[in-house]
Each structure stands twice: as structure tokens, then as C-alpha cells.
């Protein structure tokens, strides 16, 4: 196939200085739960889909986000609520200034390129700040942060009382979107909610941990 990544525009977008919140399935499915809840609460509309030949529907890695060059997975379609479709990254928007990105883990061959493409799209939408949401392995129910620069970390401490704590690798769609944002000079903050990993079921639904991030986002986005 000629195009490895392609877009489908569902509706025109007209936003003013938007902020993007990004999440994907991962540890405790926290990022996905956060974005799903914000979509529901804000009644944001699906405006763009991003498709790729690098999106498997069956992963040979577990968790899915541990991409490996020798394990590309299997392509196919997904069926949800009796509707089928190709796997995709979905962009939802809510006027005047909110973009919500429901991410999807690519395989090794496309992981970096898709993250860069997502950041390019957000840049084209005029986004100046990206907020990434994810989970980190912890016995404590708390939220910590990371950012593309130290000023943002100070801002998170002073304004929202969120400290840094997690250090180490950040895998998958969200980790690479975070890195691509830094590379392209876009401000990005990541909020990590502590969650105790479940052996054999890394992507279980950690709703309480997701709610902790939603509560902080309500303050950050001035959103009720």
C-alpha cells in the first residue's frame, strides 16, 4: 500500500488556541478512560480519524504497547456495537478550545511515525499545549507529572500541587507522542495516575485512578 498513514476528516475544525488531551489503552487503561470520560462530559464531536497500516487488531506483544520489531501483530477490522471499522486514532473536538485524542498503539514499524503525525495534526489545529494521560505502577493512589521542560513542572507543582515522582521508560502511543511534542517544540505535560498492576491483565480498567486525573484536568481546563 502506498500510504502507510492516512486521514479521514469528518467535520471542519474551528478552534481558538486549543489544548489537546491525549490518552490510549495502557497500564490500567487510564489514558483511554480519561479521554472517554472527557468526551462524554464535554459532548465533544468526532472530527478526524487517523488510519495506518501499522495498526494491528491482534498484538503479539503483551501488553500491546511493548512493540517489538519481530512481532508486528495481525491487521484486520474491529467490530464494536455491531459496527465495524479499521483500527484508528480518533480526534474529538469541542469549541472553543478542546481536542481529545483517543490513541491506538502502532507496531514497531510505525510507532515513531504515527506519534510524529499526531503531533503534526495537533500543530495544524493550532495546539500550543498537549496534556498526556497515563498510568504508572504504584501501590499508592496518587497522580504525578512529567513535562517537556522544567517550567511546566514548576507550574504543575505551584498551581495544581502535582509533583514529579515517576522516572523510567514511558512506552507506547502516549510515550512517543510526548517525545514527538518535545522534539517539535510543543509544550507537553504528562499526568500519571498510580495503579497497582494486575499480573496477566495490564490493561484492566482502573477507573478510580482515571478519576484522579480527570479531577486535576477539570482544574487545568477550567472544565466542570
Amino acid at each position: 500500500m502506498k500510504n502507510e498513514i492516512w486521514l479521514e476528516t469528518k467535520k471542519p475544525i474551528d478552534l481558538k488556541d486549543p489544548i489537546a488531551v491525549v490518552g490510549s489503552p495502557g497500564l490500567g487503561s487510564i489514558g483511554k478512560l480519561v479521554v472517554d470520560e472527557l468526551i462524554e462530559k464535554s459532548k465533544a464531536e468526532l472530527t478526524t480519524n487517523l488510519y495506518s497500516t501499522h495498526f494491528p487488531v491482534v498484538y503479539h506483544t503483551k501488553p500491546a504497547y511493548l512493540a517489538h520489531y519481530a512481532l508486528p501483530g495481525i491487521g484486520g477490522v474491529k467490530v464494536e456495537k455491531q459496527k465495524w471499522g479499521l483500527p484508528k486514532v480518533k480526534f474529538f473536538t469541542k469549541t472553543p478550545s478542546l481536542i481529545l485524542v483517543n490513541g491506538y498503539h502502532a507496531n514497531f514499524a510505525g510507532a515513531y511515525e504515527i506519534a510524529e503525525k499526531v503531533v503534526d495534526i495537533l500543530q495544524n489545529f493550532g495546539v500550543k499545549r498537549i496534556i498526556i494521560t497515563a498510568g504508572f505502577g504504584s501501590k499508592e493512589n496518587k497522580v504525578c507529572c512529567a513535562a517537556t521542560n522544567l517550567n511546566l513542572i514548576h507550574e504543575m507543582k505551584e498551581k495544581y500541587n502535582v509533583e514529579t515522582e515517576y522516572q523510567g521508560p514511558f512506552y507506547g502511543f502516549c510515550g512517543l507522542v510526548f517525545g514527538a511534542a518535545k522534539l517539535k517544540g510543543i509544550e507537553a505535560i504528562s499526568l500519571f495516575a498510580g495503579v497497582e498492576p494486575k499480573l496477566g491483565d495490564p490493561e484492566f480498567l482502573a477507573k478510580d485512578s482515571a478519576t484522579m486525573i480527570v479531577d486535576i484536568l477539570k482544574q487545568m481546563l477550567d472544565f466542570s
Partner: protein
Amino acid sequence: MNVEIKTLKKFTPKEFTLISGLPGIAYIGKLSVEYLVQQLKAEQVAEIYSKYFPPYTLIKKDGVVELLKNELFQYKDNNKDLAFLSGNAQAFSPEGQFEVVEAILDWGVAHGLKKIYSIAAFASDKTIKNPIVYGTSTDSKLLEDFKKLGVVPLEEGVIVGENGLIMGLAKKKNIPAVCLLGETKGYQTPTGQYLIDAKAAKEVIGVLTKILDLKVNMNPLDKQAKDMDEIIAKMTEVERHIKNQIAQNTKRPSYVT
């Protein structure tokens, strides 16, 4: 783009030698190059990004995110120009390793690359008191000066990853290259992380500084190497203890029923 070399500073030598050490067994290459960069106050000239690096980012202690990357540094004195290559990752797949190394060599050739010294590890099962530095090269004559400094020609083996591949692809481009391998036990933590072998790195740096006529303060590395000695002594003791236990468990029972 598969491999992107982002220029941070102009690098315009007439010709230069590249010293390369990417993370691998016991971090000997990475530590050796980063130690020289630090001691010589070499300046960063470029960053290398690739879609072939492992697909994750790193959150540092201060909370700032960092992409996986390789870095190029320059150092100049009255009679030579050097460039150093290190970083926090190697390409993950064989195809990626070839492509990243090709890109680095193309960058080098465009800037006057004349010789390469690559640093890697020689993993050994033996008890190591004074690590040997092994050597191999694109042309056996190149090793002669190294042999005078105690470097032992590598008889056989594989040099895994970009630290080996850079020599292989240098030969294809007619660039003379030597690979120095520091002997190490390659101890790993329970999570599979290699312990940094400063003792082996010190031996490799000792050889390189003589070959390149560099004056480098070795005191900080001496301290690190001493700490490594203590760790190795503890690990050896643990190994001995485990071997004894296994031997006891496999003893024949002293009775029969």
C-alpha cells in the same frame, strides 16, 4: 524519516577520527566515550533520532521527558580533530542498526571522517583481575600500535550491535577502523540491567588516550573502578555460595531405601 541527524553546531574539521561507544554489555563503550567527552569538555554538534530506536521515551529524575537518541561531540587540539559518538540507545532491529550506522558514516564522510575507533565489550566467564583489552580492525596492520600497548588481537567471536557494525560498514566505505573490546563479566541486576564496568572502561580509555595522545584526568574513573571491584567481589562471593548450594543439592543421598 528513518534516521534524522539534527545539527546543533557547525562541525568543519579538515579531517577527523571518530570514537564511538554506544550502550551495550556493561556499558563499556558508552562509559568510555562519555568519560572522554566530559574530561575533554567536548562540545555537542549533533543529535541523531531514529524510528528504529526502541519505541519509548525516558522520564528523567527531574521529571523532564527525553527521547532516545545518539549524540555527536567534537574536540579539537593543536594537532587533531576528534568526534565522539554515544547516546542512550541503539537501533532495535538489524535493519535499523544498518541504517543508523550508514547514516552516521555518511555524515562522517561528508565532514572528513578518516578513521574510526569503536569501543565494545568482550563478555567472559573467567574471573577477571585486570581486564584485558582485545582488538580487531579492518586491516591487521592497524592493530600493530595497539599490540605494543598490550591489546590482544581478538581470535574469534561476534561484536553485537552498532559497536561492531560500525567497523563492518566502515570497511565497505574504505574507512580504516579498530574495535577495542574491554573484558568484562557483564554482571546484570535481577531486572536484567547491566552493571557499569568502570574497570574495563578504564583499561580501554588507557589504551585510547595513549594512541590519541590525550591528557585525561583518570582520578574520577579510578574511584568508580574501585567501587566496581567491591561489587565484583560481592558478586563473586554470591556466585560461589550459589555454586556450593547447587553442589550440595546434587550430592547423592547418604542412604538408600
